[in-house]
């Protein structure tokens, strides 16, 4: 396939980066995930590691933003999804859709 492996949590983080478009950094991503996943325990460090790994793999890019007072004057690192990231997400979605379609009886009820 030639594509880097994407773990479940990494995929969620990547999607969240895409959702938050432009305002994605550690705290907002963690808060968003927590809210959407019914308060599942999300640790900041886990989010960060996922982000750095995604960056190393080329799915996101980052830049440092301006200083804000509530962080004691420290800068934020904002993340944006890259074209490769978008294409990878789309591919994964497609694979899943195909798999869903292939289930003989899709209704589990």
């Amino acid at each position, binding site marked *: 396939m030639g594509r880097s492996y994407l773990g479940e949590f990494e995929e969620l983080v990547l999607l969240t980066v895409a959702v938050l478009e432009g305002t994605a950094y550690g705290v907002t991503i963690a808060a968003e995930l927590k809210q959407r996943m019914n308060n599942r325990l999300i640790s900041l460090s886990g989010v960060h590691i996922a982000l*750095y790994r995604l960056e190393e793999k080329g799915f996101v890019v980052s830049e440092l933003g301006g200083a804000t007072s509530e962080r004691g004057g420290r800068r934020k690192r904002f993340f944006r999804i890259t074209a490769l990231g978008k294409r990878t997400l789309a591919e994964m979605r497609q694979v899943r859709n195909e798999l869903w379609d292939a289930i003989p009886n899709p209704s589990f009820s």
Partner: protein
Amino acid sequence: MQNKPPAWLDALVKRFLPSELYEELLGDLHEQFAFQAEEHGAQKARWIYFFEVIRFCRPYFLRRRFSAHSKYSTSYTYSPTMIRNYFKIAFRNLLKHKGYSFINIFGLATGMAVAMLIGLWMWDELSYNKSFKNYDRIAQVMQNGSVNGDFFAGGHMPIPLGNELQTMYAADFKHVVMSSWTYEHILAYGDKKFTKQGNYLSPNAPDMLSLNMLKGTRTGLKDPSSILLSESVATALFGEEEPVGKLMKIDNKLNVKVTGVYEDLPYNSHFKDMTFIAPWDLYVSSEAWVKRAQDNVEWNNNSWEMLVQLSPTADFDAVTQKIKGIKIKHVPEVASFKNEVFLHPMSKWHLYTGWDKTGKPDGRIQYVWLFGIIGVFVLLLACINFMNLSTARSEKRAKEVGIRKAVGSVRSQLISQFFSESLLVVACAFVVSLVLVLLLLPIFNEVADKKLALLWANPIFWLLGIGFSVLTGLIAGSYPSLYLSSFQPVKVLKGTFRAGRFASIPRKVLVVIQFTVSVTLIVGTTIVLRQIQYAKNRPIGYDRNGLITVTMNTPELYQNYNALRDALIKSGGAVEMSTSSAPATNLNSQNGGFDWEGKDPNFKDSFGTIAVTHDFGKTIGWQFVQGRDFSRKFSTDSSGMVLNETAVRYMGLKDPVGKIVKWNGKPFQVVGVVKDMMMGSPFEPVYQTVFMMDYGWANVINVKLNPALSAGESLKKIETVFRKFNPGSPFDYKFSDQEYERKFAAETRIGQLAGIFAVLAIFISCLGLFGLASFVAEQRTKEIGIRKVLGATVPNLWGLLSKDFVVLVIISCVISTPIAWYFLNGWLQKYTYRTDISWWIFVVTAILAVGITLLTVSFQTIKAALMNPIKSLKSE
């Protein structure tokens, strides 16, 4: 209110997170904290913050922080790659200079092995008796006093004291145990008979000593005809049979039932010789004199040992204060020598066994310290070798240091490089030393009379061993690492680097220290051995060749004196036999109460007292200076007495023969005076002694073997006679000359140990010297070449190279002389009968040291001097 997350957590974050991410991550953390504080309150937010921070300490961040391929990596001292490189270089260096490496590792290993042996020995000494659960509650009751200003103390106590302690001071004592002392007795079951050491103790003794009962219970001694056996004795007597409930005999007269078997007491305990315990009441009822002492409440008969365990609330000093006047209360006479009863705690039994004349405790603790110091010194010698060789080779490695610095090493890296090298050497040495200790331990145990083993399972041993190796590595590596890393690369690489005139001074000082220690040890050994020899050369006044003693242990032996004597002589195995109250090698009884013509009534007399028979003199071969030996021809000799020369001087008698001496009112007539016989300590003057005729007071049989036969043949003949007369006992005998040798056991042991350490110290020092000499010879190759070209001869060059070392050794001799003199003079003061420290010992030792030095360095210096100058000059 402004809530802030805990600062120490932030510091933690700073330590563990990659520096380039620190800002944004901490920012996120703080932002989330502010958010959480609003939602859940500050307290909960802090907890959440704490767990968040902990989660940040995970491998991903740590790896990023400590990995070298980080985009922003700096030169980092503890990077694994560099450390690996240091060890690689160190290994290559070790292999390249095999000789030096061997000297380094082996020298250090020897030093460490010695330190380890001494450590084990000290551990054993200090843990003596600690196996008893009530270790810190048990004490021996003793009494002290002073006669003519000299302090003395002893453990022989009267029986009524035990009852008094038990009844009047019940609150202070949990147990009061009477003891008959541990003596040899004969144990017999069926046909099996053994002579074993055992003790008669009060029934609560097993509880006090917390005996580990394998069979039966600790209450076994309550039955007055019972016996508790140690495991080893039970196995010897009963083998596979069940011992409990069996009937057996003690000394062929007392029938007892085995009521229990206890685990053998450990070798490093006061009771290591006690292999069985019988009830005190049995002892009292079987020995008439003991029964008398108990029934008549004889406060003046001090013959027994007394052990106590304090109640949990009492302490030794307070109880000693309470009981110290007890003896004077009952026996007012003893007030004249300031008698005091006191408690001697178990923790001091082994290391503080005696008191000097001023009442200061002394004993083995001195040797524990002495050997501890020697151990430290031997280790120091080995460390010095290591430092010396490393610094000596520094010029060789100067270029490496220069290049490393030129390509960007900082000093801290070089320091850690040299430390890792020394740690590597120390690690090798540690392993070698463990092997050495394993090999040497059996021999060491033999010499030191111990049962030591490596404490493989003891964490303290490993902690000490490894901690101590690391420390050695750091100390030994400190000098080279700090010194070598200070070189300036420019100078070194340009070739103008010179260590300078004074660079070798520390090395010389270290060599002097090494040899000072070694020479001191040699002198010490020599003087200890001379002291032993001196005492051995004393005239002993009797003939101990072929003299054996047999303990009279069963009633049968007391009845047939003449029949036994005739039978022995007739058998051809013996030429003479007699009985006496003590063997000739042990003056074990001293008494007062003598009266003679011209005695000062205030004089407190004390004599060694020995009861003998007519044939005693002929058996041991004593020598008369006045009068005659006991003889059956004179019926008056049945109340006769023989004095030794010291006794005559002590009594101030002008013409002793024929005089009457009274002992407790009973008159004895002096028939003769013998030459002083050395019966007590060979280091003390001979004690004033009287030999009285008394067939009733006999404890040993003395037999003079037939000199015409070999000892083995004579003994075989004698044994058959003893078997006939004494069927209830195994035939056990002691050679007097061996017993005599045992008087020197402590001194011989010190001499042997000091000798071993001296040899090791010299060996380690010489290893170092050998290394240094080879280094110097190598360094001066060119100089030697030029000298040779200009006409220097080989002896010339040999002298030139050896001179430096010889001077150092002579300085060491000069320094060590007063040190050795001071310590040995102190040691000798302990002995009344002592050798002198003559000047020639120092001279001989110095010559010896110089000789060894020359031998060591000559190999290298002669090799250098013989070298062809063409070869040494054409290189480079």
